[in-house]
């Protein structure tokens, strides 16, 4: 199941960008991912939770970029002799066409998330 959740570094970057939603996962400070039982909680509210970081799933993180930043990611398994996966990011137009090819969907997904974070940071310095 851990593969569903964004890594700690990206979870922290999302928190710094204002991600503030209930999640099924949390990174206690300096610790490994903890998945919770029951209803999701917003762990980014440090007044209550101290130095914890809400840990969204990749789907949740991509949805947040669509809703809050109008950044739309398309991850596409490309049918080529090498069967690579690529991604594109749109914001009204194609934001940038990177020369990106990945061996697995998961690698493309993580790199795409990092690029979304980079773009959002540049737009909201």
């Amino acid at each position, binding site marked *: *199941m851990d593969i*569903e959740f964004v890594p700690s570094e990206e979870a922290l970057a999302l928190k710094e960008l204002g991600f503030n939603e*209930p*999640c*099924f996962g949390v990174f206690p400070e300096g610790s490994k991912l903890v*998945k*919770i*039982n*029951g*209803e*999701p909680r917003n762990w980014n509210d440090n007044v209550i939770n101290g130095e914890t970081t809400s840990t969204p*799933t*990749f*789907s*949740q993180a991509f*949805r947040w970029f*669509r809703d809050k930043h109008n950044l*739309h990611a*398309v*991850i*596409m*398994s490309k*049918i*080529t*002799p090498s*069967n690579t996966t690529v991604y594109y990011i*749109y914001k*009204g137009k194609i934001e940038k066409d990177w020369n990106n090819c990945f061996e697995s*969907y998961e690698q493309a997904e993580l790199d795409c998330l990092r690029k979304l974070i980079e773009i959002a940071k540049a737009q909201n310095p």
Partner: protein
Amino acid sequence: MNKEFVPYEEALALKELGFDKPCLGYFIGGQLFITSDTVYNSTEIRVCTAPTFSQAFRLFREKYKLHYSIDYECSQHDHKWGYNYTIYNYNQVVKTNEEYIQSNPIAPAGEWVYETHEEAELACLKKLIEIANEQQ
């Protein structure tokens, strides 16, 4: 947060297709319960795990060699943006001879079918289930 999970009907279909990964939730008779990652599918007819959409799509990539994309496209008529899906069937592919299924195969390029990503995602999942059932 319930947007993360596939609906009950699709969860049951995934169980029949062999989905057996641990999940954060499960359904009993259509009602969703959230738990930890220790829940596996049951032999009970009306009980099944609740995979996330990501987990469901991973099953199709890994077990059925069915890949997908949720495409974001701009209508050439009114310049509004919306979504389509594309399914790539690697089982049918010989190098660059691609076979794929689109949500709107007769529409001109850029015309989309679904207003939201979530609508396109669910439609794509239903089509993947249909294709996998045919393959079995």
